[in-house]
C-alpha cells in the first residue's frame, strides 16, 4: 500500500512539474498578481500635486504646509481660494488631493483641542489617491507628533487629525489589507486550478482508465491527487510569507505554526471543492470553467472584496461555509494583529469541519462517477 501510494504521489508531482500548462498555473498567477497589486499600484504616486485651501492661515497650518512641501513625494503645492476652485482643481486633474484647513485650526492646536484637516481625493484615480492618503496620513502623524512636542496636540487614535472624505470612490483599503487577503485568494486560485484539472486531464489523456484497472485503490488515487495541490499551496503561501513582510513592509506578528495548521486545513477544504469539480468534469475545459464558477463566489463571500458583516443575514450564514472567509480572518490576524492562539483556533475548527465535508463529498462522488 505504501509503495503504491508513494508511486502515485511521485507521479503526480512529476506530472505537475513537467506539464507546461500546470507549471504556468503555478508560477504565473502568483507573480503577476503580486506585481499588479504590489508594484503597479505604487508606481504612479511620485511627484503628486496637492491643493491647499487654507482658511486658517495660522502658524500651525503654515508649519504643516511647509512640511508637506518638504516631503520628497510631493511635487507642487497649489493654493486654492474657494471650495469651487478646489473642485475645479480636482476635476481638471491639476491636483490629486485638496487639504482644507478650517478657520481656527491653529487656534485649536494652540489650545490643545482636537484639530481637523479636511482632505478631498480624486476617486477616479483611486489607487493613487489611496496611496496619497497614506502619505498624507503619515505626514499628519509626523506633524502631529512634532507639533505635539511644541504645542501638545493630542492626536485621537493616532490618525484622527485627518478627516478623510473621498470623492467618487469611498474606498479605504491599502497594502496592509490587500496583502494578507491576496495570500488567501492566490493560494485558493492555484489550489483549485491544480486540483480541478487533475482528474479531467487524465480522462483526456486516456490514462484514467489505466489508473482504474491498476491495483490502486480509490483512496490511494485521491490521496495521491491531493498532495501536489497541498504542496503548491504551502509553497506559494511560504513565498508570500517571505515577500510580504520584507518587500511590502506589512508586519507579520502572529504565530506561524498555527498559521500553517490553518493553511493546511484551508487547502484541504479547497482541494475537496476542486475534486468535486474535477470528478464532475469530463474535459479540462469544463474543469477550468467549473473552477471559475466556484472561485468567484468563494472570493466574493470571503470578506476580501467587501466585509461579510455588511451582507444580508442569510448570506452571512452562507459565508460561514466558505473556507476563505475563515482563513482570511486568520491571515489578517496573523499578519497585523498578533492574533492570540485562542482566536486562531476559533477560526480554524470551521476550516476543519468544511474540509471534512468537502473531502468526504468528493470521495463519494469520485467513487460513484468512476464508471
Amino acid at each position, binding site marked *: 500500500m505504501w509503495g503504491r501510494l508513494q508511486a*502515485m504521489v511521485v507521479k503526480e508531482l512529476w*506530472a505537475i512539474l513537467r506539464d507546461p500548462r500546470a507549471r504556468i498555473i503555478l508560477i504565473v498567477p502568483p507573480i503577476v498578481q503580486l506585481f499588479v497589486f504590489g508594484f503597479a499600484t505604487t508606481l504612479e504616486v511620485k511627484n503628486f500635486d496637492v491643493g491647499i485651501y487654507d482658511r486658517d492661515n495660522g502658524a500651525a497650518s503654515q508649519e504643516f504646509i511647509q512640511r508637506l512641501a518638504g516631503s520628497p513625494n510631493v511635487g507642487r503645492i497649489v493654493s486654492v481660494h474657494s471650495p469651487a476652485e478646489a473642485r475645479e482643481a480636482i476635476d481638471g486633474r491639476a491636483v490629486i488631493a485638496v487639504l482644507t484647513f478650517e478657520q481656527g485650526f491653529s487656534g485649536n492646536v494652540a489650545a490643545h483641542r482636537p484639530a481637523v484637516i479636511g482632505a478631498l481625493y480624486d476617486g477616479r484615480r483611486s489607487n493613487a489617491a489611496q496611496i496619497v492618503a497614506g502619505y498624507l496620513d503619515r505626514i499628519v502623524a509626523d506633524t502631529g507628533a512634532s507639533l505635539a512636542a511644541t504645542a501638545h496636540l493630542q492626536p485621537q487614535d493616532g490618525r484622527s487629525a485627518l478627516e478623510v472624505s473621498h470623492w467618487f470612490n469611498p474606498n479605504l483599503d491599502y497594502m496592509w489589507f490587500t496583502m494578507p487577503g491576496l495570500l488567501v485568494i492566490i493560494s485558493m486560485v492555484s489550489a483549485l486550478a491544480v486540483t480541478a484539472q487533475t482528474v479531467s486531464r487524465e480522462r483526456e*489523456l486516456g490514462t484514467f*482508465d489505466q489508473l482504474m484497472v491498476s491495483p*490502486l*485503490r480509490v483512496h490511494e488515487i485521491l490521496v495521491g491527487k491531493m498532495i501536489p495541490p497541498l504542496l503548491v499551496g504551502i509553497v506559494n503561501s511560504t513565498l508570500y510569507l517571505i515577500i510580504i513582510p520584507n518587500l511590502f513592509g506589512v508586519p507579520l506578528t502572529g504565530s506561524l505554526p498555527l498559521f500553517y495548521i490553518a493553511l493546511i486545513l484551508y487547502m484541504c477544504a479547497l482541494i475537496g471543492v476542486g475534486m468535486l469539480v474535477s470528478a464532475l468534469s469530463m474535459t479540462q475545459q469544463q474543469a477550468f470553467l467549473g473552477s471559475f464558477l466556484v472561485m468567484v463566489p468563494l472570493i466574493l463571500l470571503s470578506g476580501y472584496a467587501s466585509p461579510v458583516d455588511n451582507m444580508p443575514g442569510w448570506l452571512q450564514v452562507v459565508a460561514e461555509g466558505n473556507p476563505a472567509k475563515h482563513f482570511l480572518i486568520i491571515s489578517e490576524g496573523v499578519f497585523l494583529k498578533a492574533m492570540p492562539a485562542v482566536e486562531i483556533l476559533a477560526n480554524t475548527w470551521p476550516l476543519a469541519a468544511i474540509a471534512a465535508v468537502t473531502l468526504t463529498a468528493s470521495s463519494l462522488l469520485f467513487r460513484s462517477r468512476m464508471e
Partner: protein
Amino acid sequence: MDAPLACARAVTKRFAAAGPPALDAVDIEIAPGRMTGLVGPDGAGKTTLIRLLTGLLVPDRGTVEVGGVPATAQDRSVIGYMPQRFGLYEDLSVIENLSLYADLRGLPPAERPENFRRLLGFTDLERFRTRLAGRLSGGMKQKLGLACALVRTPKLLLLDEPGVGVDPISRRELWKMVRDLAGEGIGVLWSTAYLDEAERCDTVFLLNGGRLLHAGPPAELTQRMDGRVFRVYAGGTGRREVLERALNLSEVSDGTIQGASLRLVTRTQGAAPTVDALQVPAGTRIAPTAPRFEDAFVDILGGGPPGTSTLAQRYRTIPQSGEPAIIASGLTRRFGDFTAASNISFSVGRGQIFGLLGPNGAGKSTTFKMLCGLLTPTSGNGQVAGFDLRSGRAECRQSLGYMAQKFSLYGDLSVRQNLNFYAGIYGLAGGVQREAIGRVVDIFHLQSYLDTNSGTMPLGFKQRLALACAVMHQPPVLFLDEPTSGVDPIVRREFWTHINGLVERGVTVLVTTHFMDEAEYCDRIGLIYRAEQIAAGTPDELKQAAAAQAGLKDPTLEDAFIALIEESDRKREAA
C-alpha cells in the same frame, strides 16, 4: 490519363529544425475520377501532405499545386477536406451541422434542400436528421463528416484517415460512397494506415517516415511478391511455435498467423519452406497463395522481425490450473433503459487468445470494460485469473496487464518515470522493481530514451513502452484494447511476436480490435452485435459459418464479419 487535378513536387516540410523532416522530397499526383491512396503508418507524413494540399501549410521546399495554381492561392470551394477528427458540432443536430457547413461554404439557399436531400440519402442519414451529432455512432459521424465536406461538390476531396475507429461495415460503406464520388469525376485522396484499403485504390502513394516508398497502382508493388507467399496449414495447436521457428529461418522474411494456418513470405521466389525446416509433421500442406499489398510493404521495409520474443524468454511460466483464466457468465450492463451488453458468456483457457469483435457501439467495449473492472456488471458475473469480478476486484486488477488503444501513458513524464510509476502501483519495490525495469528496458531497447518525455518518442517506441508497462509485473492475464492501431506493420508483427511468445508461456489474452489482421491471431473470437454475442468460434469456424450462410468462397475474416452481421440483421427483421 487526364492532367492531374493536384500535385506536389519534391515537397519537403520540417517542423523542427533539428530532427528528421516530416516530409522529405515527396512527389504526388491526384488524377480526377480516381481513388488515390495515401498509405503509411502514423507519423509517416500523411496528414502533413494533406494539409499542404489544402493550402493550410506552406512547404519548406518544392511546390504544391491544385488545379494548376499554388494550393495556397486556390479557391477553397474547389477542395473538400475531411480532417481526421472532423469538426462536427456535437451539440448540433445532423441537419444543423449540414446547414452550418452550407453557410460556411457559401452554398446558395436555393440549392440547399435538393443538396441536403441528396447528401442525407447518399449517407443514409435521412432517418437521423434531427439527432445530435454527438449521439451518432463512430461510423455515422464519419459519414456526416463526409456529407459536410461535400456540401458544395468539390473537385478535389481530401480524406484524412476516414476509416480510423470505424468498424469494417461502416468502413466498407464509406468506401463505396467515396468510390461512387470518384466515379463522378472528383479526384479523391484517401489516406489510411490500413493496407487492405490501399490495395483497393487505383493509385497508391506509400509513405514511411516522411519518404515516398512507392507510387503507382498497388498491383505493381504486389506483383513483386508473386511466388514468394505461402500458406502453411499447420493446424490450430502448434501454430505459434511453428511461426516462431519459421521466422527464425533465414529464408523466411515475414510471417503472420491466419486463423489455424500460417502465411509466410520467403526471400526468394518459388522456394517454398520445407516441412523439415519448419519441423511440422510430414504431409502438412504448404501451398502458394496470392500476395497482398502488406507483404510488399513489409518487404520494402526489409522484412519482419525474428520469431523469438525476448520478452517471453525472460517471462515467468504461468502455472497450470484446472480453471479457465477468464470467465464471463451472463454479463449484462444497462445504462438507464439502454442495454449495452446482454447476457454475454464465454470462457478463455490458460494460454489462449480470445478476440472480441463487433461494430462500433455494439457492446464489445462494454464487455471488455466489465471484465477488466472499469464497469460493474448490472447482472451476471465473471472471473479473471480465478478471482471473482465482484468480490475479488483488487486481486483481479493485480493479476491483469492492460494496454489501451491509444497511447495512454504519461506523455509529459520521462520513460523512466513512467516505468517507475507503473512498477510502483503494481507493488514492485526495491530490488525487484529495479530488476523488472532493467529487464523491460533491455528487452524493448528503451535505454536511449530513458530520460526522454514519453510523448515525444516515435510511435513504435510508445507502443513498446505501453507493452512494457503492462507486463512489468508479469501478470497471468493481458487485456489489449486495439493494441496496434496506427502502427506500421513491422511494429505490429513485433508486438504479436511478443504476445504469441507470452501465450506460449501460459499468459491468457483478451483483445478487442477492428483490425482483421489482429483477429486472425486469436484462438477464438466472440462477435458482438447489438449487445449480444451473435457468433463465437475460431477464426476459421467463423469463416466457414459465413461461407455456408452467404455462399462465399474462401471468405476473408472481414467478409465473415460482415456476412454474420447481415445474417443477424435478417433474422432480427424476420422475427
